[in-house]
Structure formats: C-alpha cells, structure tokens
C-alpha cells in the first residue's frame, strides 16, 4: 500500500522507502552499500552519526542512523568523520586535576553554556554539564555524565566554541579511573598469587585429566553465585 512508504532525501536525492525502517536500513533499501557511515548497527559505536531536517522545519537535528526511524520528508546527510583535534599524552605522567584538562584542552574555558552539544547528542547525554564538570576539575562528575558517550562526533560538529567534548571526556575518565577510583586490591592480590605459581599444580593436574575425570569434577563442582 502507498501508505506503507515514506519519501526521504539522502544527500538531496529522493527515495521511496518502507516506513518504520531505520535511516540505515532505509538507505540500504534505497541502494546504498555503506563503506563509511555504518558500524556496529546497534547504537554502540558512533560510526553512523547523521544530521537530518524534518519536513517543513529549518532545524538540523542529530541521530544515529541505526537507531532512528525515517519520517516522511526527512532530508538526511551522514557525518561519518569529524576532523576533530585529539591531544596526545602519557597518562602515567599526568595529575587528576582541572589544570590537566586545561593544559590539554584550554578551549573548554571558552564554553558558552549554550547547550547546543547536549541538544545534538543522540545518546541524550548532558554534554554541556560534563564539559562544565571537567572545567571545574570534577572528574567524578565528568566521568559519570559522559560514560555512555559513543564518540559519534555530533557535539563537536555543532559546538560554537570549537570544543571536542568527547575527547575532553576521554581524558577525564582515564584520569578518574586510574588515579581516583584506583585499582581493586583483590585483583593485585590474585595477580601476585598467579605469579608465585599458587595455582600451577592444580591446573597442571586438570590439564592432564581425562575427559571423564574433568566431566566428573565439572558436574560436581560447587556453584556459589550468591552475593
């Protein structure tokens, strides 16, 4: 039926596609074979950042092509790459502080608090808030607020202060994880035990066991998954 289809414009070109498809599948239906602009196809990688404009609207909106359903009259352009700046550093030489953030990304101090980044985010992340947290040196907050970021690049493309929020967030999270959250003692203890060879003998015995012996041990092992 005619009502089962919508019209979309991919880079200006008109296509009739079944409604209810994601932008990604609609583009494939229309004959595209993605090279750039498709990745995990499940909302985890940020490869398919897309700008679109709705019928009759002047507004540019952002979405992941794999997560957004096409609408009649939608005009679509993918932004599969953003020439954003990424500073290089040696994490082990840094201090977890606001000055580190400012040293590598001084442009965060130019944040206008306009919230355009947050509006552009297809993950509904409070981007401006984490940029502000990083600027204050509140690495815990910056980490928490930015954690679900998939670095699709849409915030950076839209930011009038030329900030690359996701690269700022990556630095903030690594600083927080290494220096503030820190290592779990149980991991360090177990590594030491393994290095001392504490488990070698038992594993050696299991490696030599017959399939029947192993199955017997496996089937009779105690299962303790209580908290």
């Amino acid at each position, binding site marked *: 039926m005619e009502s089962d289809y919508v019209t979309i414009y991919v880079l200006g070109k008109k296509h009739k596609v079944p409604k209810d498809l994601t932008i990604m599948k609609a583009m494939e239906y229309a004959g595209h074979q993605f090279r750039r602009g498709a990745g995990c196809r*499940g909302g985890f990688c940020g490869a398919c950042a897309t700008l679109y404009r709705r019928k009759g609207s002047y507004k540019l909106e952002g979405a992941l092509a794999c997560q957004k359903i096409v609408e009649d009259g939608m005009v679509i352009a993918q932004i599969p790459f953003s020439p954003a700046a990424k500073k*290089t550093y040696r994490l082990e030489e840094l201090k977890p502080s606001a000055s580190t953030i400012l040293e590598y990304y001084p442009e965060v101090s130019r944040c206008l608090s306009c919230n355009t980044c947050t509006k552009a985010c297809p993950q509904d992340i409070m981007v401006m808030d984490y940029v502000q947290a990083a600027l204050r040196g509140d690495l815990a907050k910056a980490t928490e607020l930015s954690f679900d970021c998939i670095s699709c690049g849409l915030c950076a493309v839209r930011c009038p202060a030329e900030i690359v929020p996701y690269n700022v967030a990556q630095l903030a999270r690594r600083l927080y994880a290494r220096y503030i959250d820190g290592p779990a003692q149980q991991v360090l203890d177990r590594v030491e035990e*393994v290095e001392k060879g504490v488990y070698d003998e038992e594993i050696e015995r299991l490696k030599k066991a017959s*399939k029947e012996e192993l199955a017997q041990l496996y089937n009779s092992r105690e299962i303790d*998954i209580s908290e």
Partner: protein
Amino acid sequence: MSDYVSGYPDYMQESLRRVEETREERIGKRFPPMTPEERQRILEEYHPDWRMDQKRRLRVGPDKGLLMPHEVADILEAHSMVDPSAIDLGDVEFDVDVLVIGAGGAGLSAAILANDSGIPAENILIVQKLRMGDANSKMSQGGIQAADAPNDSPVLHFLDVMGGGHYYNDPELVEVLVKDGPEVIKWHEELGVLYDKLPDGSMQLAPGGGTCRRRMHSCKDYTGLEITRVLMDETVNREIGCVEFTAAVEFLKDEYGQVAGALLYDLDSDVYRVARAKSTILATGGFGRLHIQGYETTNHYGATGDGLVMAYRAGARLVHLDSTQFHPTGSAYPEQIVGQLCTEKLRGRGAQPVNADGELFVYPLETRDVEASAIIRECYGRGKGIKTPTGMMGVWLDTPLIDIINGEGTIEREFAAMLRNYSKFGIDIRREPMLVFPTLHYQNGGVKINVKGETGVPGLYAAGEVCGGVHGKNRLMGNSQLDLYVFGRRAGRAAAERAKKARVGKLTLEHVEAYERMLAAEGVETDRRSPILLPEYRGKRALEHHIKLV
C-alpha cells in the same frame, strides 16, 4: 501502569498480562538446572549446530574434510578477490616490523604490547577495514571474566571454561586464559578503564551462564565500549599508525615460506597497497555477518570472516568451525533492532526467560548453547512462543524483575544501553519485558594458535575471535572479552621478539595461485570470490529475515 503506553502491539497484551500476573510468584523461584543428559538431548534436538543439513565438509586445503556451515565453506571454497598477476609487489608502500590487521580489542592490545616490547611506534602499523575500534569488541555489553574474587580461583575458571566448551578446548590455551585474567584487569585499570565497583572499592561481580562463581567484571552495560575506547586513546597517544578503511585481503609470503606482510585494499580508492612486515598479527574478528542458517546477528557490520580466508590460503590450520555460538537472547521485537544483543547480564541480575503463558521454563543461567536451545524448543517444540508481526517467534525476558530484586534504579544504572535502545522504540524495560530469540553471536572455532599466538605459519600470529581452540565448542559469557586481551597481548609480545631477529625476502603471492590450483584439482567450480569484505543488504535484502528453522 498508569500513564505508560505499552510498546507492544495489542494482540500481545494478553500474554504480557500473564507475565505480569505471574511475576510476583516467580521472584526468588529457582528453576532446576538440567542434568548433563538433559543438556545433551536438548542440544541434539534443538541447537542449530546439530542441523547437519546446514553444514558440509570442506573440499580443499590442509583441513580438507573439516565440517563447517555452508556459509563458511562458501568463502573458503572461493577464488581470491585478487588477481596476483595484476599486482606489483615491488611497489612497497608500508615497510614495518609489526603489522597488525584489525583494530578491535585484540589488535589494539597487540600493537600496544609490541610497542612495550621495544618496537618503536613508527615501526608498527595497524590496518583496519573500517574505523579504528569498529569491532565486535566494542559491542560487548555484559562483561569480562577474571577469577579474582576471594572465593574464586583460576582453577575454578579453568573447569568452567572446559565444561562449558564440552571439553573440546585446547587446555594449554585455557590455562593461559585463566591465569592471565587478573593481570589483564590490572592492566586495564592502569590504563584508566573504569570497572564497576562496590562502595568498599572491591569489584562488583555478576555470575554468567555456566560460571560457578561471580566472575563477571563490567563497565555498566558498555563494557566493550569502555575498554576499546581506552585502548584506542592509548594507541593514538603512542602515535602508533593506523590506516583506516583499508582491508587486508591476502597475506604476502617470501621465498622462505614466511608470512611477510599483507596485500591491502583501500576502500576509499579501490586501490591495492603493499605492506611488508617482519611479523604479522591477524586480529580481524569473526563471521557473524555471514548470517549462518539465515540467523540475524549481533555482530558488527565488518564481521565477514575475512581473516579465516586469508589465513587458510596462507597455510594456517582451522579448528572447531563446526560450532557456532547463538546467543540465547537477541531482540525479536521491535523489528528495527531484530537480532541485536540483549546482554546475558540481564539474566545475571535476575531477569527470567518466560513463555507466552508467563511460565519460567529454563534455569536462566544455563550455558549459552543450552539456554538458546531451550528458547528454540519453547517456541518451536512446545508452541509457547509469541509471534511477532513479521512472523518471527520469541519468548519474554522478564526485565522488570531486575529492579524488584535489586532495588529501583538498578536498570537505569547498570543497563543504560539496553534501557536507552529500547526506549527509542517506545519500550520501557523497567516496566515491560523484552521479546527475545537466539541470534548469531560468535565464531567458536577459527585459526589454530598456540599460547604465543603463533599459527604455525612462520611470521603469522593471530588473536581474538578469528582464532579457535580456547572456547571449545561453546564459549561462556565474558570469556571472549578476556580472550582478546590475553591473546592480543601475547601475540604482540611474541611478534615483537620475532621482528627483532627476522629477515624478509622477496615478496610473493604464489600461495594464492597454489590455492587456486588446489580448487581446480578438487573440482570446485564457482564464481564466488573472497574475502567478501562487506555484507550485501542493498534493496529488498534490507528487509529479509529467513531463519531456516523448520
């Protein structure tokens, strides 16, 4: 339900009501795990691996006779996409010590460890078919196993891996997997990976299917994303080169029979480029996008099994390719996300699989092959599935239990990705269950390696999903994430040591021509070419689902 409008069609409401009515009495209810005999029976009756008409024996090469899915045999019994006579191997564009093919978890780990082992960044090259980090590694949600809990040990982990893999695993590989596990977590924490912790600073651990202890470390339900982006950041910081949108399509050898780099294909320009290397590490991932038996897949767009093809033509051996992992819980509805992963951690935190009548029908943490078989049986053997508008079957995964059992806010905190992805299609998984069916998830078998990541072909190393042996014929949740880093690191170290001594001779593609002669000698007549590099979804194929179930 007050103001909440169900995200499911009207005709499913009756079944949803039964799920809701029975929820209270299912809390804390323990469905007995199957006996070893019951497990074997359900696998034989319902697991896709046991559909012998969906497999054939390979007709060519050193593993001639090896049983594998038709889709995998199709890419191995195929002509090279390259015409060796049209390539000028004298025009060497990249000349490095260590070439890493693939920039997922295994490849990035290998590159970093090669650098740590004394190979300068400028003498390491990563090539990647799509973008850096575009890999299944990044899509892992639920977690990574490592035996560091006080009541756990590498010995118990070893037993779980072997039993889960039905004892087909290579015990040497399993030993290093479980012993290196804690070291990998330590390395991640040093690099700035943020694992979920309890208030006292200890690891927050969850169980997985077939684990006898809580051993699953997680980063919310973005575990793979968090680890991969840190490794990417570290790789860029070290200024290790990565050429993106450039696929390796055949290995290059020299007159001594060593692998000495790879022939690359630039996806932007359709031009071939020559990369010469003293050591080459294959880390191209799996084959989910081959859609074995027509199954939908959780896999990345680039998971087309390229590495298997290249390695086999170069003389590497293959193992366990008869076994494929179907994840028990892929999305069955809504249509837009069919086949995508619903992490096993949902069950680890209390979600139950229930049928159309609201009955719990299986222990939620059986190993993946058994759990998947039980869901297929419920739909096709017992007629207790729910049919979607497109004719697919599924059962409910009762997620609201997670917040009831662990406290309100748990789903929002620990399953941000699942909550977000479903809410985009009008379903709130805190209030309504997910509709799920098994989905093609992982290549259990692959290229045979030893504990150093050596393939047996001099100069060629491999790590990650492209390899087989460590997981036997069924992988446990969280062990592929671990496998990436354990064997990626090992391959990186070993490749670096070799590169310090190795000398490379004159480059050749003679092995590709020899493979061509083998195909002819075995009477394989086909116009198929491989590696295929990209799956084909253009036109009507964008709408296809046809699982060859019944």
